[in-house]
């Protein structure tokens, strides 16, 4: 059941009109151009370097209204919008091609967990800074010895009375070298079941004893670091939720992460332009109304069927959730299927591009190969495809002993 009251239709129309007027007046023209590369995405943070004045102004204006996170409560700086209003805002932003003013793991991952598990002081301290893009967060989950088997993590937090002392190492920390704070899974109990000795800590990356090392990937990019903790002191009040109950929060947050990864770039395209088939038709030409390369065409068409069926399933799961039906079991399905589709699409794009797609290393924004390589991580990060299938087998299909 949604706690938000239904917004009457008439006032929703007013809201739409006012929103459009405000966006037209306040969204700088440069912020209505398509995002070309990473520098066009604003991540905020203490050391933020705005690409231009427009990016800074756009963030500031949107943050003032809480519209960087339209549905978060007003009490912590959020927009306080209902679901219907938030949808109107998204639609109006899309209509004017407005860019997202702020992208961050604080918004997409930590925020929902803070709102659900944080105490009042933690919410007042951290959420407004996420809303305004003042603090950039990173995630400390995986370790060199704890990948798919995340719960076997060994980074330890020893109780020193008024603080924890952190020792260990995290890996695959997205933008670990750019983040201000980290939300981090640590072991606070080495006895008993591995899931029951994990706690969820928040701490400042500027703390003494933290160092990071960038990891160069097959795509040529280095978005991740390995992060080292050497006697890092973390105040006790930075524990989120209860001691040794961090796994519950970790799972809650992973569900959000999966939905984010699974849903990447796969909108419904029936009747629309820019499908893979149309792209291929432009590159390879048609013969008798059909794509000139019939075997490639068959794979493209099969992909398009699956991609559209998947987009409809995302839509259906959202509709089910809105109707108050149980959909928790679906996040693993969406993550598994969505990421596998994304990889298939990248493979097909490489085939369509032929040798042109092999260009690599000149740093051009149009290069396809790095994008293709990047997709390979989709089915690894946030729980591998195989882990998602395990989860479905165990929790959805109730198969024995999984």
């Amino acid at each position, binding site marked *: 059941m949604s706690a938000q009251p239904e917004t009457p239709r008439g006032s929703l129309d007013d809201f739409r009109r006012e929103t459009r007027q405000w966006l037209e007046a306040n969204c700088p023209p440069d912020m209505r151009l398509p995002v070309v590369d990473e520098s066009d995405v604003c991540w905020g943070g203490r050391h933020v370097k705005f690409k231009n004045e427009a990016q800074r102004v756009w963030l500031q204006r949107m943050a003032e209204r809480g519209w960087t996170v339209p549905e978060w409560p007003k009490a912590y700086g959020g927009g306080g919008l209902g679901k219907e209003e938030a949808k109107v805002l998204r639609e109006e932003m899309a209509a004017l091609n407005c860019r997202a003013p702020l992208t961050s793991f604080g918004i997409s991952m930590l925020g929902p967990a803070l709102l659900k598990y944080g105490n009042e002081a933690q919410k007042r301290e951290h959420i407004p800074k996420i809303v305004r893009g003042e603090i950039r967060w990173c995630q400390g989950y995986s370790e060199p010895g704890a990948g798919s088997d995340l719960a076997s993590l060994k980074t330890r937090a020893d109780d020193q009375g008024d603080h924890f002392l952190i020792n260990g190492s995290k890996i695959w920390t997205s933008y670990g070298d750019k983040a201000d704070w980290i939300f981090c899974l640590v072991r606070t109990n080495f006895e008993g079941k591995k899931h029951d000795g994990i706690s969820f800590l928040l701490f400042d990356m500027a703390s003494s004893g933290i160092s990071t090392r960038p990891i160069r990937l097959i795509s040529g990019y280095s978005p991740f670091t390995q992060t080292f903790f050497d006697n890092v002191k973390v105040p006790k009040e930075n524990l989120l939720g209860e001691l040794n109950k961090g796994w519950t929060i970790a799972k809650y947050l992973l569900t959000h992460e999966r939905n984010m990864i699974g849903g990447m770039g796969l909108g419904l395209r029936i009747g629309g332009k820019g499908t893979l*088939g149309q792209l291929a038709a432009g590159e390879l030409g048609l013969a008798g109304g059909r794509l000139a390369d019939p075997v490639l065409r068959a794979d493209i068409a099969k992909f398009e069927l699956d991609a559209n069926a998947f987009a409809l*399933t995302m839509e259906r799961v959202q509709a089910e959730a809105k109707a108050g039906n149980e959909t928790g079991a679906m996040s693993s399905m969406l993550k598994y299927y969505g990421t596998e589709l994304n990889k298939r699409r990248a493979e097909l794009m490489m085939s369509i591009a032929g040798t042109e797609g092999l260009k690599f290393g000149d740093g051009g924004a149009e290069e396809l190969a790095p994008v293709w390589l990047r997709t390979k991580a989709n089915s690894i990060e946030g729980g591998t495809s195989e882990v998602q*299938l395990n989860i479905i087998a165990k929790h959805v299909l109730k198969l*024995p002993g999984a």
Partner: protein
Amino acid sequence: MSLVLNEDQLMFRDAAKRFAAERAPIAELRRLRDSNDATGFDRAVWKEMAEMGWAGVLVPEEHGGVGFGHVGAGLIAQEIGRNLSATPFVSTAVLGVTALLKGGSDAQKQALLPKMAAGEVVLALASDERSRHSPYNVATRAVGSAGKYKLSGAKVHVLDGHVADRLIVSARTSGDVDGRDGMTLFLVDPKAAGVSIRRVSIVDSRNAATVELRDVAVTSDDVIGAVDKGAAILDAVLDAGRAVLAAELLGLSEEAFERTLGYLRERDQFGVKIGTFQGLQHRAAHLFCEIELVRSTVLRALQSLDAQEKHASSLICLAKGKASDVARLATNEAVQMHGGIGMTDEFDIGFFMKRACAAGETFGDAYFHTDRFAQLSGY
């Protein structure tokens, strides 16, 4: 339109679920098969189904139906799929009704729709001539003038053809053999001189027939829609049939999958339940995802027919293509995971694989609809 069922639809589905499981279960299909039943379904049960609103699900109330739309028809078909119920639902309640609603004259509608909705009259679509679905490939000719025609040609895979009270025949009144233009639909009395119908025994134990026409006399009163303009009606008829068959394929995939899960949970080998093996778990989990995708495409396709959307045909290709493909996977996995017992006739699971194959081929399989989807998308 939201991709969830409303209260009325949920109630309708629950009633259909109870009825199909009770009155038309797999045991009944087995009985019809083993007794070489001459009709191929139970006429008394079809009357009961008509009373439940099944035969008239697409028929407007003014013609004696319940007008519950394509989503409603899909809910029935899903239960038919789960129970492998032998009925003339597709031939009569979907194909026949759609042809009359899209092209029928007032006289045709008044004469036939109430009786069809009451379960008293069975219609059969005699359209395909090739063994691979190719609806515009029509060599059957209608020759004549001044409102009188003679039909000659041969049709294959005519569902319920041998028990139909009326046939709907596609014939060429002009144009090339493989052209979309120049086709006309005729209502034909199967007892008329020159009509010969031969029942064909097919793998799913359901009804199919070949129909031969030799100088069969018809008049302009028997034309459905306009002369030479039959293709548009035929497209609508086939699309309705495809969408409903996709729902049936969904139902049978769900049922075969649930039975397989049950078997994985109870069958012991090597001292453990076979459902503990990751090799089987991952295949089952993948199949779960595929069936979820089919569920979305089927509902959306049926909704697009009810709303008469511009892109309904693309959505139907998506649903029928995907449902045919996934039903094949679901039933093949079902037989494989059941092992030896899955190969026995005594065990029911093989019936699902047979029906998946037959319903998959009917009105275009995954290859047909993938190709058609691409063509509709401009490549």
